[in-house]
């Protein structure tokens, strides 16, 4: 899932300082599961902000609403009648949801309450670890199901580098070396030949905004025009 981390309260307060009535929009999918931007977190943040502003003698009215998914147009429609009542909109969704909200309400300032922090697995309650950088050219087939782009601090395709330290990455003893793990797993599977050959320079796919249209589907004729 996509995980995110709430921005520091001071940064959020700074963004909201010129406003007195703001709608905070939660998202019921990824950020809700990773405990940062669902209905509950919207209410907690709103309470924090209202108390802080009250103490500063500069009250703010925070509206609350959560939609199933901010990255899906059908769920955003529920906001159309509400947004007009507010000076600005804040989103607790990932960067995708925030932008889709801003696109739908181009006349309103739309502000992020969270920092999007990657595509991660759920290791335990409240504990997430990044696993994919969506490079667009998956190599997991020959790297034993361990992503060197994400898990190697240098994103090497022909690792491990000389900094492997007792199985850890040179940047942090608590971070396992991706290439050490790749070696160990391939060795166990008898597939080391996969990393014996030189892997050539990568053809990066994530160097510009990508559009995906699945086979059998097409973009409407008027899509892609300037909004």
């Amino acid at each position, binding site marked *: 899932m996509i995980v995110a981390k709430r921005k520091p309260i001071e940064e959020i307060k700074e963004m909201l300082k010129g406003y007195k009535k703001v709608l905070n929009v939660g998202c019921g999918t990824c950020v809700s599961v990773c405990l940062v931007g669902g209905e509950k977190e919207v209410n907690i943040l709103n309470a924090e902000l209202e108390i802080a502003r009250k103490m500063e003698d500069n009250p703010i009215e925070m509206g609350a609403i959560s939609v199933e998914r901010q990255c899906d147009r059908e769920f955003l429609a529920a906001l159309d009648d509400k947004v007009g009542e507010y000076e600005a909109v804040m989103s607790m969704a990932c960067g995708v949801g925030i932008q889709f909200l801003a696109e739908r309400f181009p006349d309103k300032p739309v502000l992020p309450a969270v920092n999007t922090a990657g595509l991660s697995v759920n290791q335990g309650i409240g504990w997430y670890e990044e696993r994919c950088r969506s490079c667009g050219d998956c190599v997991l087939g020959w790297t034993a199901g361990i992503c060197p782009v994400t898990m190697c*601090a240098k994103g090497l395709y022909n*690792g*491990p580098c*000389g900094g492997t330290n*007792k199985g850890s990455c040179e940047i942090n003893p608590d971070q396992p070396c991706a290439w050490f793990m790749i*070696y160990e797993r391939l060795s166990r599977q008898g597939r080391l030949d996969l990393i*014996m050959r*030189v892997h*050539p*320079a990568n053809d990066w796919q994530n160097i510009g905004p990508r559009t995906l249209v699945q086979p059998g589907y097409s973009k409407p004729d008027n899509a892609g025009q300037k909004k």
Partner: protein
Amino acid sequence: MKSGSNLEKVLGAGHFAFTGELGPPRGANAEEVRKKAAFLKGNVDSVNITDNQTAMVRMSSWACCIILIQEGIEPNYQMVCRDRNRLAMQSDILGAYAHGIRNILCLSGDHCKFGDHPQAKGVFDIDSIQLIATVKKMRDEGKFLSGADLDGVPKMFIGAAANPFADPFEWRVHRLAKKVAAGVDFIQTQCIYNMNKFREFIKQANDMGLTEKAYILAGVTPMKGVGMAKYMKNKVPGMDVPDEIISRLQGVDKKKQSDEGIKMAVEQIEEFKEMKGVAGVHLMAIEWEHRVPEIAEMAKVLPRPKVD
């Protein structure tokens, strides 16, 4: 001859090579480069110029290489993958060659986290093995990585590093084999302290025929004292410093420790001269360039051969 560099000539003629290293200054102090270089002149076959080593900003490697050429010393241009994408790398290689640089050492580079700009974005567009292949393609096919033709081909002697000690040990010789397959001409190893492990590594490399395909220069860094030995053991990733190295240094008076460190380095060099598969020594006397002349003298590697 692939490049005609002095290092290539010395190795090609079968001499035991002896290379040095110089760290550029943290500023625009060209005099400092000349001062350090003077200690190396005539005592080594080629001098590695580090490229923002430990991810600290320093005078650029190619610029420092040009200063060395002006001083009559052959440089070995180190290039890391951390700070440049494939466009900048290829363009720097062309410029370096145009200025007379003939050796290049292809490295991944220390992670930015270790340096003075830990918040910097590491590039790593290509890795060290892909960089080797890129330089080889430029030299042997006269083409850019993209396949387009070059106007003027950089005839570089291509080097890379090897760490025989990092984990997993069994993989290390295969990584060396990948560098050889990518087209490397010479290898300079990480500083060697664990001689047993290195003997095993070089035996594996001999058995796989790798030492026939690339020249292996054994990395030597003399210990300045117990403090440095402990730091290398505990703080430098991928470094293997056996306890007996530390206890030997501890066994002498503090003032004599640096002499003992040099003595140990000289003993290593003597063994490397006899070791099958080792074509030379790369002496990394870190911030100790002024002691290179005496080390070279004691190791009996002087005078350096002149090969036409």
